[in-house]
């Protein structure tokens, strides 16, 4: 197989993009570590860091990472619904329902985080 096998088919390309969202996860996680580090160092460093986040390069990187994170969340919720078999009583819960539970959890957790912060 050629090294660019994943360009041959739409589904393969989608797959490789899905896998590359892990870079967005790592990137943002490291960004968060620095956020906490700036908090630890005091208000000045914190404000400096917030300014740093406003720089065009960081804005661009964050926008890209955001796209990656969203793609990660959506694919993850949909696929985990296929892997996890939930039974209520005797009937297997259809995958779509499991996926929608994932999405509801996502919305609730997001709302809670916003509520805590503001």
């Amino acid at each position, binding site marked *: 197989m050629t*090294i660019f096998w994943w360009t041959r088919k739409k589904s393969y390309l989608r797959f490789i993009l899905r896998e590359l969202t892990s870079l967005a996860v790592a990137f*943002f996680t490291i960004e968060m570590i620095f956020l906490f580090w700036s908090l630890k160092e005091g208000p000045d460093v914190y404000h400096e860091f917030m300014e740093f986040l406003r720089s065009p390069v960081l804005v661009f990187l*964050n926008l890209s990472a955001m796209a990656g994170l969203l793609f990660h969340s959506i694919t993850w919720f949909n696929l985990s619904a296929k892997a996890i078999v939930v039974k209520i009583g005797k009937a297997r819960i259809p995958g779509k329902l499991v996926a929608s539970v994932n999405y509801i959890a996502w919305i609730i957790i997001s709302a809670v985080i916003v509520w805590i912060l503001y």
Partner: protein
Amino acid sequence: MKHQFEPFWWSWFSAGGTLSALVLPVVMMIFGISVPFGWIDDPEYDKLKSLIAPVSSRILIFICISLSLLHWAHRFRFTLYDGLQLQHLNRSLAILCYGSAILISLFAGYVLWNF
């Protein structure tokens, strides 16, 4: 045996995948987009600091960070392994990916420990 630890790493990958999918987008939306674009104010320093100060918060954050990193490590390892066909570097890739995830987690732990 080569695959003895696959279930171990995969468990972290899965847990991290779920956690990052649930938590990260909203945090990114706040700090990475809404704040820089000025749609909302910067979170106040004192409030943020006091939110994170309790040990329980710091433990939660540490779990979130380290699992996300392990998620990345496992997934990225296979992206390189299959996508770039580096099967012959399997061991080195594993050490590189999981190693950096652990090192960065340790750094995060250090930051949070001394918060």
